[in-house]
């Protein structure tokens, strides 16, 4: 296995198969917590940590985990890392822990993590699986941070708590509410898909 394959796997998670914008996985945390930018990056990095380590461990143990009990085994492994994240965050980042609340524990049932365990880590060597976890995790982080920046900018006029909108700007309360989350997610999804389709077409034309 060479460096090229690692890089390809890593970048795959960020662009071609971005979990939020291309695979449309993990919508629950995406919609629930993206009303401020700090939440997006905190949730994204916590999920990335869990993804990298669960992928790595599942890949290392893939010959020891019997096919029949792979699902409970995955859950035990994923839940362990989620609990680690939860305890560490509670101890050292109490403010973030308070805002993310129950959604930290709910990383356990984030379908991105489960999908990568089942579709990738269970069939691939450890290093490649860790690269996949890192790519997917950072892809998720980028996507929800982008969405949460847009929502915070429109809903509160700020990004990461710093004011960006001019004085006269009246914050649109709907942007930080769940309904606005749906609308903005849809628009962002459309924009990303449009850009991807256009670059695809250009590539084909160049051929």
């Amino acid at each position, binding site marked *: 296995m060479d460096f090229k394959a690692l890089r390809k796997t890593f970048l795959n998670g960020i662009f071609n198969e971005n979990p939020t914008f291309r695979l449309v996985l993990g919508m629950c945390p995406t919609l629930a917590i993206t009303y401020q930018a700090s939440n997006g990056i905190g949730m994204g990095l916590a999920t990335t940590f869990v993804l990298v380590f669960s992928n790595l461990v599942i890949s290392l143990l893939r010959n020891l985990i019997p096919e029949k*009990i792979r699902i409970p085994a995955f859950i*035990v492994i994923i839940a362990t890392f989620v609990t*680690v994240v939860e305890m560490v965050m509670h*101890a050292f980042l*109490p403010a973030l822990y308070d805002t993310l609340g129950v959604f930290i524990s709910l990383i356990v049932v984030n379908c991105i993590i489960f999908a990568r365990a089942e579709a990738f880590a269970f069939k691939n060597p450890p290093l490649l699986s860790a690269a996949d976890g890192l790519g997917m995790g950072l892809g998720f982080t980028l996507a929800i941070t982008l969405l949460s920046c847009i929502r915070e900018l429109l809903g509160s006029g700020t990004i990461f708590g710093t004011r960006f909108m001019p004085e006269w700007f009246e914050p649109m309360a709907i942007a930080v509410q769940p309904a606005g989350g749906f609308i903005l997610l849809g628009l962002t999804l459309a924009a990303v898909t449009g850009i991807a389709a256009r670059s695809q077409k250009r590539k084909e034309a160049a051929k």
Partner: protein
Amino acid sequence: MRETVKLGVRLMLFALVAGLLLAVVNAVTEEPIALNERLKADGARIAVIGDYAFEPVETDTGGYDAIQSVYAALDESGQTVGYVYELVSRGYGGDIVLSVGVRNGAVSGVSVASHAETKGLGTADEAPFLQSFNGLSQPDEAQGVDAMSGATVSSDAVRGAVAQALAHARDVLGAGEVE
């Protein structure tokens, strides 16, 4: 049957390793988590009197309508060093919830937990007003503190609440006789 047992044992081993790992992480994070929880629960109380343990005090608050609850601040040997009053007072835009620390019969700090006033009572601009209560020991003195200009009703609400805390500490708890 045999296979079921085998699978069960395998899964048990995974769970065992996971449990051990979590035990290690728990050992590391237990203390900071306890500290955070305490700061969250006692944060407002610590802000007005200092870093002590707090215990609710059963006391008669009849005639003191603003007082919601009273906590004793205990030092390490369990001695009461002062009291923290949690009060609700009617302001201009709604209820003002505030904590008042009383130590040796005098105000050690006032902090506003929540309010619905026009703007920022309890924020940085109003800090001098809240600080001006520190050290006062007579309810009349608390009533005489200079009001914030343009926020007379809000100021009155805070002054009234602080005066009640001082009066209660002096008359009911007898805190003024310490020292």
